């Protein structure tokens, strides 16, 4: 199997359906499983949580909660009970989905191929390297932005923002285009940033995996295999930072955008 096929194979989703009505089964399954894991762990935690003397795991979760609510308090001006759970969901879910990136690239596809008996079965286990996932989240956030903008500023206030912002009342056509771009770029940049980072990260993992896979032949393996391990470890440690940072950025920008939506018209 050539290098290009190897990479392409790894970056193709296991899907059913045709055209628009295609479903990426791996993306859906993994993200659902991670969501279910979040719910399951939360339920278990809440069932046995203690107010007086929180245990280790409860402390850990409480510190995440604290971290999120501090961020919400800093970046969000108004009061909205939806924002904090939303931010928490984004942070944990995105982090978990990103974490799938750190699992050895061939492990799950290989196991899946063994189980399914199809040696060419596709499997892409990182939901955030699928633009559908990142765009789904950012579009949901975008819907919330529009909803709260209209709710807080009123329909006229929201329209006014398009008409007179940023250049005043003499440049209304320009203003409409500018504000439209500004608004649309919010979900797009959110989705593309996360997707791009994770996709690139996955690609680098694949390239590193190729070092041992295709270059190491015979005695050369003595050189290439250790190099692969070393590079993989380095990129893994660096990527651990990246996935946390990306989850954090997605969360903070969501809070900030929604905070802007909650500001009174100016």
């Amino acid at each position, binding site marked *: 199997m050539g290098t290009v096929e190897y990479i392409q194979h790894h970056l193709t989703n296991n899907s059913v359906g045709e055209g628009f009505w*295609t479903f990426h089964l791996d993306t859906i399954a993994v993200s659902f499983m991670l969501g279910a894991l979040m719910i399951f762990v939360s339920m278990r935690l809440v069932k046995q949580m203690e107010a*007086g003397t929180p245990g280790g795991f409860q402390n850990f979760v409480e510190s995440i909660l*604290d971290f999120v609510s501090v961020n919400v308090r800093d970046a969000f001006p108004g009061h909205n009970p939806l924002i904090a*759970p939303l931010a928490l969901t984004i942070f944990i*879910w995105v982090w978990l989905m990103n974490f799938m990136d750190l699992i050895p690239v061939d492990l799950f596809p290989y196991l899946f191929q063994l189980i399914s008996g199809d040696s060419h079965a596709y499997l892409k286990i990182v939901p955030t390297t699928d633009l559908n996932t990142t765009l789904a989240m950012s579009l949901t956030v975008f819907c919330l932005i529009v909803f709260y903008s209209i709710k807080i500023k009123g329909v006229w206030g929201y329209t006014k923002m398009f008409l007179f912002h940023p250049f005043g009342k003499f440049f209304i056509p320009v203003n409409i285009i500018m504000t439209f771009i500004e608004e649309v770029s919010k979900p797009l940049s959110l989705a593309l940033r996360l997707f791009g980072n994770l996709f690139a990260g996955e690609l680098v993992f694949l390239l590193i995996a190729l070092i041992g896979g295709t270059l190491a032949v015979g005695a050369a393996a003595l050189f290439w295999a250790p190099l692969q391990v070393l590079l993989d470890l380095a990129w893994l440690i660096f990527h651990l930072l990246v996935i946390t940072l990306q989850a954090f950025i997605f969360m903070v920008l969501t809070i900030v955008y929604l905070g802007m939506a909650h500001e009174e018209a100016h």
Partner: protein
Amino acid sequence: MNINATLLIQMIAFMLLIWFVNKVLWGPLSKLMEERQKKITDGLSAAEKGKHELELAENKAKEVLKDAKSQAQNILGQAEKRGSEIVEDAKVKATEEAGRIKASAQAEIEQEVSRAREDLRKEVASIAVSGAEKILRKEIDATRHNDMLETLVKSI
């Protein structure tokens, strides 16, 4: 890049997950944390209050002690005064009693003396009368000269 129906599924999943996280994690846990925060705040303020009350009580105890001390001092002083008064009183009474006893003794002595004198006088008179009787047996009639003899006895 292939955007497809997966997007819709993921959007629904995301919204459901937000709802679930709010329901099972954020809600209960943040409530718990808030309650704990409140408990800690309450506890701290209660401790502060207790400390303050302790201080007040200590001050009050000191005052009461001081009061009791001064009162005791007062009582002690009064008792001392009363004691010396009683002693003084007793002295005066004793002196009076002594005087009275002395006076009554004197009176008794005087009475005794006068009685003795009376007796002596009567004795002497009777001796004199009997002497005179012996001498003057014949000339003097006891009944006729009784008046004269009486006068004589008195003058002795």
